[in-house]
């Protein structure tokens, strides 16, 4: 499997769906990925079984403020700089890059980083969706050490942070990013291929690609939603229109979706934070984080970001099950409804 050309567009569509309203828009990173692939050739997507078990897997992603990243677009060579540092530190080669967050912008951006670092991408990621913060990754639950955090800016300035415990690591890493001017690239949770088995979420790249393919094949947006739900054990929640939405960045705010067409007469409450957090109907929870709630605009076909939701949007809402790791007690502690300030029970999405 390779990522290049038209497949990149499909991949980006899939990343936006898996973002569940969060993670920024994958389509904004598409030009970066397309240019990188033009320079270096298609990026291979590999399975762990194809890699030497003692080789290193390097997660890598952009970090900082989007407003800064829009001006300081960087070189993507930061990933190559970090790779060199990681290889010197561990004394062995990096054999694949890992996308930290498949959902949204970082999904597509990781293709550009992998291309510039000269690495294939492992068919996996650290979230299976999008979450705010850098510790909400499956590697954290699996006990992989995040240390060292290696950070680089576009002028090849590199800082490696070594510290015990997440609190200090994140605190130090944050101050490095401030020093960079709120924009950089970082890597943490570097692990061996052997360690990665069971610590990462398998098949994420293929899943995003397949979702993009299904969208491309569908005649209408509702058809695409049904096809995705059918193939990935999810449910189509409803077709409707957004009857009230007042997004407040960073704070859960409710939006209302009034059913239309076959769902006429239904009223859904959608809890919106950095991503879509829950759907409730008549006091019944239909879906909550960490399951993936995606809202499609039926006029554009785009998966709407949580900050883009406005009165009058015609939508189809879909819920897809999250990776199993988030449904464990430890997983729900980290990313369950309570972790996002919701007083709702977790009710796993089950295919009908």
């Amino acid at each position, binding site marked *: 499997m390779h990522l290049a050309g038209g497949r990149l567009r499909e991949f980006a569509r899939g990343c936006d769906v898996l973002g569940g309203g969060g993670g920024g828009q994958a389509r904004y990173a598409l*030009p*970066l990925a*397309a*240019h*990188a692939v033009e320079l270096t050739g298609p990026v291979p997507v590999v399975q762990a079984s194809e890699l030497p078990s003692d080789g290193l897997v390097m997660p890598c992603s952009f970090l*900082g*403020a*989007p*407003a*800064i990243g*829009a*001006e*300081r*677009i*960087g*070189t*993507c*060579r930061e990933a190559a700089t970090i790779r060199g540092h990681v290889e010197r530190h561990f004394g062995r080669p990096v054999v694949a890059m890992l996308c930290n967050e498949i959902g949204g912008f970082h999904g597509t951006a990781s293709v*550009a980083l992998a291309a*510039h670092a000269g690495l294939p991408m492992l068919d996996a990621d650290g979230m299976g969706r999008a979450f705010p913060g850098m510790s909400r990754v499956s590697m954290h639950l699996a006990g992989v050490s995040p240390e060292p955090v290696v950070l680089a800016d*576009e*002028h090849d300035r590199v800082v490696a942070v070594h510290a015990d415990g997440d609190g200090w690591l994140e605190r130090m890493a*944050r101050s490095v*990013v*401030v020093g960079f*001017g*709120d924009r950089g690239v970082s890597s943490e949770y570097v692990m061996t291929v052997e360690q990665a088995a069971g610590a990462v979420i398998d098949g994420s790249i293929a899943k995003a690609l397949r979702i993009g393919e299904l969208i491309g094949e*569908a*005649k*209408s*947006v509702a*058809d695409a939603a049904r096809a995705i739900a059918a193939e990935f054990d999810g449910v189509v929640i409803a077709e409707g*229109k957004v*009857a*009230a939405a007042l997004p407040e*960045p960073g704070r859960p705010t409710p939006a209302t979706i009034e059913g239309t067409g076959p769902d006429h007469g239904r009223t859904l409450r959608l809890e919106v934070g950095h991503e879509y957090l829950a759907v409730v109907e008549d006091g019944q929870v239909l879906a909550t984080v960490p399951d993936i709630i995606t809202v499609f605009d*039926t*006029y*554009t*076909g785009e998966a709407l970001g949580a900050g*883009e939701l*406005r*009165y*009058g*949007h*015609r939508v189809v809402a879909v819920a897809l099950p999250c990776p199993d790791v988030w449904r464990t007690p430890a997983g729900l502690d980290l990313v369950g409804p309570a972790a996002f300030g919701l007083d709702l029970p977790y009710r796993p999405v089950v295919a009908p």
Partner: protein
Amino acid sequence: MSAGTLDRSCRLGITVQRDRYAAALVESDGTVLASIERPTVIPSITEVLPSAVDELMAQAGPRGIELENIQQVMLAVSEVDGLAGLPGSDRSWKRWPGQLGPVAVVRLGAATTSLPPLAGWPAELRATVSIAETSVAGGARLDGGDFEPLDTAALVAFARSIAGKVNAVAVSSVFATVAPGHELAAAGLLRAELGDSVPILLSHEIGGAGLLERENATVLQATLIRRAWGAAHRLRRSLVDCGLSHAEPFMARNDGSIMTVDYALTRPLLMHGAAAAVGARGAALLAGESEALVAFTDVAGQPTAVCSVTGGSAQLAAGSTIIAGVQTGLRTVALVATDPPIGGTGSGLTQLAEAVDRAKGSPRDLPLLVIGPGAEKLVDTLPGPLPGTTLVCCPPRADAASAVGVAAAPVGGEAVRMFGAASPHGDDIRTRVHEQARAAAVHAGADPVTVAVTDVEESTVPHVSEPTVLLRVRAEGPPRVGWRRTYERS
């Protein structure tokens, strides 16, 4: 001419949209003296101007209006890519003749290679317009310090390599909107090498957040500059031919305000989407409703799109605008087309009602103002009230609403600045940005005496560690008067 007739100064508005045009004569107190709406074989302002003037004067003449009373001529077009003859654009436009480009592109900011200048452009357009691109060290950081020290040697070497080969140069720079110093210094160096006859366009004057979108807009402007000059020359000549050499010409812009032709020369992209913006303004004026929805119609009486109006102006879309396949930071009217959803069906009234609801932005019912050549026909065919609206009306002279809107439009100017929320100079900066907005409006042709700040938006830039303020100030004023004719046909 008696003092009495001088008092009756009025403005001529003309809008051209593909195969039709509208024209109106509006008195300075807002009274509409005459209006027409007609088909045209060739969409071009110079093409329709003579007959528009004849017809309007025939209507207004009996009301005591002479050509001498027309102090300004305001013009609007629906899209600029067709006029400009950009590759892939609609061929029905009578495009500005002459060369597209060639331009050279300079980016100040070497460590931005993840997407070099023009990397995402359609290949045909890129090959047509640009002969060389370079990224050299330079640019600023958010705090105003250097992103990289400006590489003057590389700039001079590049300038020498393009000397004599380009019609314009587009210069953009990292965080030019925060600190434009490197762009200004680069312009000086380039001018010294290339001479004064090669225009050098700077991205901070074009504006917009995001290096790539600002750079793209700057390059497109540079590409069009020669053609725009030619078009402006022909426009002035045709005004002279129509007996309007004393009237200053203005062009409508994306946000529904206007700018002088001199100002538009280096910013032709700003004309994009203006016809819709002034149409919404005209509808609101004619109906006396400042909060409303506006439906545009075609000559068959079919609705084509709906937009919403607040405070008498069309609401602009949040996102960027793609022109000739290139993403630009230009903001245009948030038009909701009456097309059915992807793969869906639906037409006529159902689709209009849905477009109305999608354009509203809130559940509140609003009046729907129907304008354009088929406005009366559409309103006549409505069987009853339309869901989501308080009333549906076809304001007087609805067919020529866009021409009335452009004739009555103010001149606008904007200034944007990012600065640290903790800055001890915060109030000084605010005062200066207010002054810059007024200066921008005056530069675009507003009357310097009455220009005033009309809108101030202050927000926090999210996710930045040092609390940072984004301040956007808008000023508006009526178009200047007393413009002296500098242009006579010999």
